[in-house]
């Protein structure tokens, strides 16, 4: 009953907003639909491509544009399932006010809205085939965080970890590498991670100047040095245990080399990597796995905390052992394993092979288990552990009760790297970083997932669609959050003093 009332109230509010908007077309800048136009006979080549995508019911406006070098103007008409319509368009861009867009979404929740697009070219209007945007019932986590960094090689300058409100376009800074750095050599920040999508327990690393791992525990900030006598490095790739104040890390000796002609351009590789468990309360580190001949990396917990999944390299062919990276780079492959974990005794069970990628000449990285524990996502390429530089890398999804992966072609692109997959808290939205726009700058793509089926992925919306061209940074390590980080940059910076 309460739900029904809530729904009615929302519908009434949506209707009121819509009505108000229709009464004030000129104030809101709603253009008229062209009185006459020529049928283009095809879908519009809009950027980003939002044709027939499925979006969350709380996502920010899906602003888009027609190619500026081909069109002079664009008008789009959005029709909701209840028959109401609204038009947008200024120049070649369609940019919608957040409140109006949310009214449209509210009116289309669980259904589809129809979009008709007209493009003006040399004083003639073309009308394109209409397309639909499907509005899912399931919302997406309200916040997303990522590191903004040039698709760089060795040199870095300004970098920041930012958080974005997915229901609007607001982007704020969690931390940047300049605020507390007084050394010209600079500081590198990376690997932000949260416990259970919440931000009162989180971490990120800082390296070079005043390096360490910044850990927020119940809202209190501290910096710790995770390099211990018995570890090969400080903590690198983190995974918070879902219930306890424990963090699994890989420790890595990481290097990078450059291809002189290969399209992949960069190879990032480890010469050693192990797994450790860090106890936040006692500041103690214990070894999970440290096979000296193989490389263990990318730990991630099952949602119940009873299993730790991770990737582990397979032995190199006999003839390549002892060879350097110029001979081995394309032969290093990782499989997916797991170990059971007993929280009370803090002991790990025997290693189990979960997915044998190497036997299919593939390599698995960055696993993430779905919140319902039924699926596991990972990035899969032919070789190596750093798939964001591998053009052949795709996101794969393995039902944990099966041996083979399910089709995620709707999420993946052809010939461009996809990496760093993750789930929303309700398990209905998959997000990954992809270089598909131009092969160089990674952007965030989101896909609807339900009962083992994914829908066409859509690009993270921006207020100005050209923002994707103007921002010369990559979106690195996108992570969902259900709440924003409440600690200010200044507060974080104090742990470096």
């Amino acid at each position, binding site marked *: 009953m309460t739900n029904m009332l809530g729904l009615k109230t929302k519908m009434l509010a949506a209707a009121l907003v819509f009505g108000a908007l229709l009464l004030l077309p000129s104030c809101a800048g709603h253009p008229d639909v062209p009185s006459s136009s020529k049928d283009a006979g095809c879908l519009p080549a809009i950027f980003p491509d939002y044709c027939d995508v499925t979006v969350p019911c709380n996502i920010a406006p899906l602003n888009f544009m027609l190619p500026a070098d081909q069109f002079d103007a664009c008008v789009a008409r959005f029709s909701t399932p209840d028959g109401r319509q609204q038009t947008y368009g200024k120049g070649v861009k369609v940019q919608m006010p957040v409140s109006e867009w949310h009214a449209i979404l509210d009116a289309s929740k669980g259904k589809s809205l129809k979009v008709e697009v007209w493009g003006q070219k040399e004083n003639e209007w073309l009308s394109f085939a209409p397309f639909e945007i499907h509005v899912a019932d399931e919302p997406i986590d309200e916040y997303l965080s990522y590191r903004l960094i*040039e698709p760089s*090689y*060795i040199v870095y300058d300004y970098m920041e970890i930012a958080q974005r409100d997915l229901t609007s376009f607001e982007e704020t800074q969690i931390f940047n590498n300049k*605020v*507390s750095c007084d050394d010209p050599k600079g500081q590198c920040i990376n690997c932000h991670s949260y416990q259970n999508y919440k931000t009162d327990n989180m971490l990120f690393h800082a390296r070079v100047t005043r390096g360490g791992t910044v850990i927020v525990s119940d809202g209190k900030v501290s910096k710790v040095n995770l390099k211990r006598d018995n570890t090969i490095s400080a903590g690198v790739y983190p995974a918070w245990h879902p219930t306890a104040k424990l963090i699994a890390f890989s420790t890595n000796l990481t290097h990078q080399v*450059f291809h002189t*002609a290969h399209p992949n351009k960069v190879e990032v590789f480890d010469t050693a990597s192990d797994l450790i468990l860090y106890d936040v309360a006692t500041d103690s580190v214990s070894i999970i796995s440290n096979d000296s001949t193989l490389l263990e990396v990318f730990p991630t917990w099952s949602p119940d905390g009873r299993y730790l999944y991770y990737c582990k390299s397979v032995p190199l062919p006999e003839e390549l052992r002892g060879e350097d990276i110029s001979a081995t780079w394309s032969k290093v492959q990782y499989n997916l394993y797991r170990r059971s974990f007993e929280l009370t005794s803090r002991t790990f069970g025997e290693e189990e092979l979960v997915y044998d990628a190497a036997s299919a000449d593939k390599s698995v990285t960055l696993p993430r288990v779905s919140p319902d524990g039924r699926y596991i996502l990972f990035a899969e390429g032919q070789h190596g552990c750093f798939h964001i530089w591998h053009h052949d890398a795709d996101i794969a999804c393995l039902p944990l009760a099966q041996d083979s992966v399910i089709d995620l072609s709707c999420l993946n692109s052809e010939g461009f790297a996809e990496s760093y997959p993750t789930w929303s808290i309700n398990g209905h939205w998959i997000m990954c970083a992809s270089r598909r726009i131009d092969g160089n*700058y990674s952007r965030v793509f989101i896909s609807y997932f339900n009962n083992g089926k994914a829908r066409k992925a859509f690009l993270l919306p921006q207020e100005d669609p050209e923002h994707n*061209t*103007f921002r010369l940074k990559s979106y690195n390590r996108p992570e969902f959050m259900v709440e924003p980080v409440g600690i200010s940059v200044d507060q974080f910076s104090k742990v470096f003093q």
Partner: protein
Amino acid sequence: MEMIQRNKATAIFLYVSLLAFISFVIYLLYINQEVLYTAHDRSEFIVGAPFFHTLVSKPFGLMQYAGAWLTQLFYHPALGACLLVAIWALIFLVGAKAFRLQGAATALMLLPIACLLTSIVDLGYWIYIFSIRGYWFSQSVGYLAMLLLLWAARCTPRRWHLAWYLLGFCIYPVLGWFALLFMLCLMLCDRPSWRELLGVVLLLFTASIWRTLVYSNQNPDDVMLAGLPRFITPIDSSSYLSIPFWALAAFTVFIPLCGRYLSRWFVPVLCAAAGIIYTCSFQFSDRNYTDEMRMMRLASDDNWQEVLRVAAENPNPSHSMVMLRNIALMNEGGLLERSFQLGNSGTDIHNPDSLHVSLLNIASPLVYYNYGKVNLAIRLSFENAVATGFSPFYLKILARCARATGEEKVVERYTTLLHHHPFYAHWQPAPISGKVSELQNAFADDINGVDNNCEGYIIYNFSHTSGTDSRTVSEQALFYSMIRRDSRCFWASIRNYVKLHPDEAFPLHAQEAYIMYMDKAPEEKRIMLPVEQQVYDRYKKFWETLEKQAKPGVKLEKIGEDMRREWGGTYWWYNIFGRKLL
């Protein structure tokens, strides 16, 4: 009568001094045209919200944004220079009003202008590595804005000064250190009162308050005295280059304190002379510095004939110039006929700060691109652009590289950004030349470490490429094995060169090297090639001369210098006396 004559004389001195100073400014900007073009080529201005927000999130960011936009005008150095001169002319006029200078004392405004001029011409090789956005205009625009405010403030009654101090505080995010300078000048312009005391308090705490209230995510060093240029990179720093700005502040404070007492006839002469001497003593002047810039501009446009013309006029080229010249010879022909005649011993760059600037920062992306090493060109473009900004130079070379690798969407991104530049509205990357394409396809993929020695990589890589079936690569392999003075590489590459160039004349420098290696480092199984008798006779004469010169106690460098005039254009001289590059 005497008074009128004295005033007349003072006016004459003032106008003559102004004329002399203006002539000096115009002359200096004229001879720095290549520097100004390079300023636009290496300065970042990216259209759109991300670049704008990045800048305005810091105090003085709006000035930097305006400065970055205006720097684009240096595409036509004369246009940018005219604008700069116009801003300085306004500074002179507004400054005279703001400080209430009259007669001869107005010439005092030449001193701040000399400081701003100095900051334009003293950078030297910092131009390739510093990352201060909008540097070229932001200080002049900021200073002009400060003077306008001061003028406006001094036109109002003194009781309003407190409001002006508050305004100075409020506009700190826009004017940065110039807002503080404005408050300081306003205090010094009139006799102290309780208002000035409040002004002092505001002045002292303005930056801290803004840091606490608004800029808490910024490094305190970037908020205090925001906008005052600091020249720091991870490996270099210079306090020398900050001197003109401290001098600018000092002169600006000095003028309200002493300006009224400096109206004697000789003041304009002194100011103009001081300004000229000051700027001359700080300006960076080096022929290779500007020739390098000219060659870079021409090489970026694939104008190889002009590159060769500039190279031919320079007797002591730098490493970058040698590299660009050899690429020009590869494209225009004559590498093995002319290269050693023009000299292959690059000189080190001259700079007062002992900067870590090299071919890597100056020309490496262009060199790698033209040698077909496109991935390396992309990497070094990124390394440099991340440190200094995605300037037109890097956007253009990245677009060219992307076209060469077939990444059309990347080409589109960079050309879209360039098309918002006032002078690149229709820019498109030039088609990939046959040479670049041939070189690009001649090499298999290889794994390369973090070695940033571009010159060493090119020399080593080409000299070990004797097995190629590309005619261009075989020529480069022979050339760089000669540069390397490696007899094993030489013999391997000359065999391949002869095989791939069957109907061509045996180039002069290859003959010279062949004779020398046959004499000094022959292979067991010799390759017999016809050489000109004249070249062989010269070789004998070279050794006779060398033996005569080589006496006990005489240093090799001295012998090399003595023999340079007659033999400096031969491979033999290079082989023995030339600077070792690897």
